[in-house]
């Protein structure tokens, strides 16, 4: 589903060049629930940005759902982001002047032609925000905003779901609830990529990719095998 071949991303800042990703190659299968683990600054967000065509790599080739996104026209990139990937931002990136419900409705409206669309409120309920759908982002806590962002991503129904620290702002109970949802998406055949620095979360993954200084240092099933979600605690 997702293939990276020798992908590097470098930021030139005057004399200094920051290498955010260094010659990364990997292959993720359809329906896999993958956790990307790594310390702060290791290149996790950069990796997601590349996979979602929010940014282009300095070198290398990325294929998602059979499409080479590194060779795509801008126009095709728009289509790709609309129809293939959904992104949950580390910093939420909600529309500040839209309510929670409208933020979700916004993406639903983009796919108005698709059948079996869920209702915005139902999606919000599934992330535990059933009562807050009339509120604007600035009236919501960080965790609540994050759940709106997750609801928005779920609502798209796109085959690839990319989540950047989706539980970062959440308490344990809600965090687990969200992970449940994400796993269920993988169960439905979606490919889910979750970025976190929380090693505990990696226990429930099908596969764990560990980044350090922009390089893959480990790739495989969780060390202790895939644990059920009920085992988690932090």
């Amino acid at each position: 589903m997702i293939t990276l071949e020798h992908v590097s991303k470098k930021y030139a800042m005057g004399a200094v060049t920051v290498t955010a990703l260094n010659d990364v190659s990997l292959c993720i299968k359809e329906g896999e629930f993958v956790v990307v683990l790594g310390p702060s600054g290791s290149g996790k967000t950069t990796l997601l940005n590349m996979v979602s065509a929010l940014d282009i790599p300095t070198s290398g080739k990325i294929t998602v759902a059979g499409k080479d996104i590194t060779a795509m026209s801008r126009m095709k990139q728009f289509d790709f982001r609309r129809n293939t990937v959904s992104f949950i931002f580390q910093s939420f990136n909600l529309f500040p002047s839209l309510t929670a419900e409208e933020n979700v409705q916004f993406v639903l409206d983009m796919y108005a032609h698709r059948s079996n669309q869920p209702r915005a409120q139902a999606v919000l309920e599934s992330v535990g925000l059933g009562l807050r759908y009339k509120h604007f982002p600035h009236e919501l806590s960080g965790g609540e905003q994050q759940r709106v962002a997750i609801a928005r991503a779920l609502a798209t129904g796109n085959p690839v779901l990319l989540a950047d620290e989706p539980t970062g702002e959440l308490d344990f109970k809600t965090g687990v609830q969200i992970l449940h949802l994400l796993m269920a998406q993988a169960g439905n055949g979606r490919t889910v990529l979750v970025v976190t620095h929380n090693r505990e979360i990696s226990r429930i993954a099908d596969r764990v990719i560990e980044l350090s200084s922009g390089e893959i240092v480990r790739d495989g099933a969780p060390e202790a095998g895939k644990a059920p979600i009920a085992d988690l605690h932090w």
Partner: protein
Amino acid sequence: MKLKFWLRWSYRDAREHWLQVLAIALILALGTGVYSGFGKQKEWRIESLDKSFAMLAMYDLHMELTDGSYLEGPALEAALAHIEGVAMVETRLLVPTLIDASKGGETILYPGRLVGLDLSNGGPHINKLNITEGARLSEADINSNRVVIDHLFTSYRKLSPGDTVKIAGDFELDFVGRGQTPENLMIMPGTGGFMENENTFAIMYMSRASVQRLSGRAGLVNDVVFLFNKNTDPDAVIAEINKVMAANFADTGFNLTKKTDDKVYNAMYTDARGDQRFWNIIAGLFLFGAAMATFNLAGRIVESQRRQIGIGMALGVKRPLLALRPILLGLQIALIGTIFGLAVGYIFSQAIAGIFDDFYPLPYWRNPFFIESYINASIVGLIVPVVATLFPVWRAVRVQPIDAIQTGYLVAKGGGLSYLMEYVPVPGKSYMQMPFRNILRSPWRSLLTMLGVSIAIMLLIAMSGILDTFQRTIHQGSDFYIKSQPNRLNVVLDTFYPINSERISQIQALEQDGQPLFSKVDVGLIMVGEYVNHDDEEMLAVIDLFDPETALWQPTLKEGQLPDGQRGIVISEKAADDLGVEVGDTVRVALPIREGLLSYRMEETDIPVVGIHDNPLRMQAYMSLNQADLMNMQGLANTLTLYPAKGVTTEEMRRVMFAQPGVASVQLVSDIASSFEEAIEIFNVVMMMIQGVVVILAFLIAFNSTSINVDERVREIATMFAFGLPIRTVIRMQVVENLITGLIGTILGVLFGYFAIVWMVKGQVADMIPDIQFDIHIALATFVTASVLGIVVVGLTPLLSIRKFLRMDIPSTLRVME
């Protein structure tokens, strides 16, 4: 997608930025409004003229008997009654007189003319008298002393019905109304007294019988107006009249003027066509400035949502849809703006029509055409905000979405030009360097703000500057005449008299109460010639010959000197420029050379230019009296300059001089000085009217540019508050930033404004009013206003945010990672 959803979203955008949206809409409204008020001037003026002249039954043909000739009214009417094609004939009696309307210690004593109209059967029916104030004349007035006096003269001299008015012979008239007939809408050379204008020549309308009685010319007339049937050939009528006159009144000379040859009638139309260009420039500049400002400001609102555009891109929203929200915001601005613009346009068009009504009181002065120019302007008004909002979208989709999201609005990646800070040593703590960093960090935003301010200042400088230039010219012209010897009187004699003639020595010896009236009398010659340039084109030259050795009043020179014994002419700077000559060159002048007693031939002569005088009138030139031989006029004079003796007032001199035989005109130099104002008065008055609007517009633009700047920083400011930086410090930083931005914007604006004035004055006005020299002048007050607006107001804009800052919900401002 549901339209309702988008409309609601966009309405929230507008509400969030309501102050800016409203201000931009107002800017747009002023731009489109002024444009539509000024536009189509030619069309509505010509339509108004057509209608007015028709309503007043402007004559088709005008017959004036030679000066001093009179005919029996009934006999003349009978002779002209049955000419083929003539629908109506009316005879009138025109008599020169003086008006004395002195009041409250102010002497109002001027030459004038009684116009005796045929009031029978509700007349006059041709060249009707349009009453602007007071009563009209009716059949009942046929034998009364009721008089209607010229609108312009009474308005300039502040006379209203009921004021005491006397005419020559100390005869008091009953001043009942103010008004005009179409042939007297303005006084032009040849339509009033010699060298007079509307302010110095009073036309007075009475019944024909009354004028006949007052002038002792019972039954006599000297002026006839004709109205034709439709499709009448004026030349056929003229031929017929010539025949009839030759048969019946062979000894009487007369002059016939077709309507289309009427000087006043033509001038009204020529002005309407010619002026349009000037108003187009003013209107265009307004619209241009407002459009630029709207483009800038509306774009900025969308720029501040750049991050959200990035999010939309990340969500894969199609580009047309990405543009929808900004477009809707732009449309809201456009709609409010153009609706207000309609109101502004209406007010302006009516105000301008009102000004014209004051100057030329025609019965119909209406501007229905503003709707048409409004439609043109509102197309601009609708398109600009929409395009303006699209521009930032276009800018955003060119970069990777992550850049649009991450960098935040407008902040250039990598810190913009911040590195320049290393070269600019700014003392103080890091947060005092912040304003400089802010400006450099986001050069695009800073540039937009500066441009916003500069547009405001450009408009202000251009509009005020053109008014300053006009007023400077008026002052320069009037100073030229009245700076020295302001009490002198200029007298033009009815013909040429030998300098030592009895007529002149009698005047020189005039006395009042046994004392001499004048301390000195300078004699001179005034001659009308023409400058001839290299292409053999001619332009008017009015040459004053005076004695530089003895004359008390002398023209002030800019350059060179007065002719001193040798051949030489002093010309105006404008003439020198137009002829391409300098002091030391020669200029070719066609001069009248006297051949017989009263006959002349024109002959071209090359005369050295010895000086340039300071009078903005192009035609004015000076030579020494001893060069009169050039024109075969040696020893002759036709002008006198009279200086009062001690204890004698100018008014006393005028009263005496009006009674003297051989005097064609008696002019106060202050009246000559005012003729400059006359020449550009309408422009002047309208420009004064829009001064206020320019200041408001400039304020709105400047204020908005900077307040948007402050708004964009609101998150950053919340962070500073969160770190405990006092409001005072934060405001100070913003003020410093705005001061720098304002200063640079103002400097740019002054430059743009200056170029605009140069283009207007040297390129356009010079073409439209070629006979006056306009020196570009920007008054100190204009610079001060510009600096106050561009630097002080802009600098202090952040103070208005204090309340907002005090009430700021810091956590919630910070919480949203928008």
